[in-house]
């Protein structure tokens, strides 16, 4: 494996002129679009693409068990960043730089902040597919109005909103703490606003002192202030997002805000279409005065990606298949099912093809203008770290560990 690993470019790409390659994706409702893309590709290609799906909950575990074996797919779905770095380290993935050199549109057709999140050690390993998922601050405008407040622009606005809402007897912020990852989103944003994206990058590259820096401590202090103000109520650890607990709080007006990925829109739509139509508000995460991070920064899942295995015999055909990821047809189909593709041509189709043009327009602007789009911590770190991160995050919110305990927990993570 090590022999083929070094970046010897210039060699003729391996290509078989007949046969078929396998594309492995996360199994869910979006597969409809992927099936159409594969069918479209097969119409004109001699080498055929075969789509395989694994049900979502089992996807990552199954992928990891087959990727080093004979059953490994040729192309597979992933989240970029930490989700592929173990595979890159094991020498399994094909750097796509040669493909991009012969077809620059494979890179230039995508928003840069998104494309770069599938780069490892300066090489490209993924082509964006599906839609972007920034984390937004959702709100119930009816509740805000009755409390006489509006969507917060700054951290102080948010703190003021919290006390106004508490006086009204409403839980200010719905939080699915039982799932732990929604809690983590609050850390991601506060850290980014106060320290900027460099802190996470530094920590990821192995410099553990980043977590003990004064910025890190300030972020924790600010978070603690919000928790102690009673912003999340008392029972958030018994609430989950995954069983619709926290979105229901927002939709029924028992809570005023929820910090959640853009998929919350479709979740809320399935719970209460009326609420989405009349009272759903959304906005960017508030700025924090004095922070180093750009208030336009975004965190979340930048997108999903297709990565290619080094062992494939169909590089030429796959290069052609990947060009479909920025085709007009693909963009329109993704928009129609509520996904927001991150190609440069997306904007022109939003008003005609999107399920909710205003919402998609807002999201697209947010992502396009973002100087930095930080990956969720548990996606940026290797998989073995995700549980320790989530545990530390929950324990800090519950007061089981203090600032030092949290810093220690983050410093004991393994970096790749």
């Amino acid at each position, binding site marked *: *494996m090590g022999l083929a690993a070094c970046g010897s470019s210039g060699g003729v790409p391996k290509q078989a002129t007949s046969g078929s390659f396998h594309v492995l994706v996360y199994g869910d409702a979006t597969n409809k679009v992927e099936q159409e893309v594969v069918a479209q590709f097969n119409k004109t290609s001699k080498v055929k693409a075969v789509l395989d799906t694994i049900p979502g909950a089992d996807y990552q575990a199954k992928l990891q068990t087959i990727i080093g074996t004979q059953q490994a797919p040729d192309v597979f779905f992933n989240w970029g960043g930490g989700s592929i770095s173990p595979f890159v380290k094991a020498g399994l993935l094909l750097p796509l730089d040669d493909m991009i050199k012969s077809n620059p549109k494979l890179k230039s057709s995508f928003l840069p902040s998104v494309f770069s999140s599938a780069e490892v050690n300066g090489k490209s390993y993924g082509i964006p597919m599906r839609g972007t998922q920034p984390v937004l601050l959702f709100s119930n405008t009816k509740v805000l109005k009755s409390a006489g407040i509006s969507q917060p622009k700054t951290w102080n606005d948010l703190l003021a909103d919290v006390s106004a809402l508490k006086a009204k007897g409403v839980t200010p912020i719905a939080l699915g703490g039982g799932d732990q990852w929604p809690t983590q989103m609050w850390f991601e944003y506060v850290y980014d606003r106060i320290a900027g994206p460099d802190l996470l990058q530094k920590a990821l590259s192995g410099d553990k002192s980043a977590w003990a820096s004064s910025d890190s401590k300030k972020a924790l202090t600010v978070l603690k202030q919000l928790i102690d103000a009673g912003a999340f109520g008392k029972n958030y650890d018994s609430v989950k997002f995954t069983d619709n607990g926290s979105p229901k709080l927002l939709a029924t007006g028992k809570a005023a805000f929820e910090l959640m990925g853009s998929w919350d829109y479709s979740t809320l739509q399935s719970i209460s279409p009326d609420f989405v139509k009349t009272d759903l508000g959304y906005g960017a995460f508030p700025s924090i005065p004095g922070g180093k991070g750009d208030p336009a920064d975004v965190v979340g899942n930048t997108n999903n990606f297709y990565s290619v295995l080094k062992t494939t015999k169909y590089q030429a055909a796959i290069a052609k298949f990947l060009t479909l990821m920025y085709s007009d047809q693909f963009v329109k189909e993704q928009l129609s099912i509520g996904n927001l593709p991150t190609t440069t041509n997306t904007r022109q189709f939003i008003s005609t093809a999107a399920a909710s043009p205003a919402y998609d327009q807002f999201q697209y602007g947010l992502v396009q203008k973002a100087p930095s789009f930080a990956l969720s911590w548990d996606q940026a770190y290797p998989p073995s770290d995700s549980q320790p991160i989530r545990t530390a995050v929950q324990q800090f919110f*519950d007061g089981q560990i203090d600032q030092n305990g949290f810093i220690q927990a983050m410093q004991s993570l393994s970096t790749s």
Partner: protein
Amino acid sequence: MTSIARTVAIRRGRQRSAAGTDRVARPGFAWALPATVFFLLFAIVPLVLVAVLSFVSWGGLGSPQWAGVSNWTKLFHDPVMLQSLWLSLLLTVLGVAVQTPVSIFIGVWAAGYQRNRAVLSAIYFVPLLLSATAISVLWRALLDPNFGIPSQARWLFGSGNLLGSQAGAMGVLVFVGAWQYTPFHTLIYQGAARAIPRVLYQAAEIDGAGRVRQFLHITLPQLRNAMITSMILMVVGGLTTFDTVLILTQGGPGTDTTISAYYMYRKAFQGFDFGTGSAIALLLVVVATIISLVVVRISGYDKMRSMAEGV
């Protein structure tokens, strides 16, 4: 010389005849062969593989690397692992303590013959027919602090943060486990209670013993073997509890309900550390075996005393 040869011959003859009668009287080893082969294939071989895996470092990618005892030393210094063993034991002990008395009372009651009892027993049996996953999802919804039972009974549940504290979350796990498995153990006791000879009760009545004394001095002692069977099943079930934890608490809050079986899953299938996961699995096998042996030894079950003895 000749006499020795003769004795040997006689012995051989005896042995042969003894073996011969055996073959006629009891089934030979061949009868147990299919079951033994299956047991070897599906229990012993995987167990040995797990034991081997516990000495390697393997993330599912590439080939496993020999790691010596490092997985084991890491485990014994891991506070979460030590806590998880303690939590597993606590969950098991609480499960036995709650389920045993309840199942004995209901089991003995259900051993009666009136028609309404049969109907009630049938209804009561329903939780056992549902999958543990369905039950966990059901109870999660019922215990939701904002939309479930606690929101309607604030005087009892306060903020309803049942799954947000260690005591609350463990309590929920014990309760849901009992709700699901008590019917099964009730069935064991019902069967055992019906097998108690009626003459015992008739004799006691003649002697003037009341219902309470009959229960304490006849029913309970006669249920002894059923009790041991049921308790061993509870111990094994308690130590391997997994699905309820996965769905109800995910080991949280923090690591407060991370019992060993769940920690094993977390290490192996979420953290992709199959070596450590296997070590935890093996540790669980050892602990469960020891506890079962202790229960058997203390209870005297290994002597296989007859239920009819002393009648």
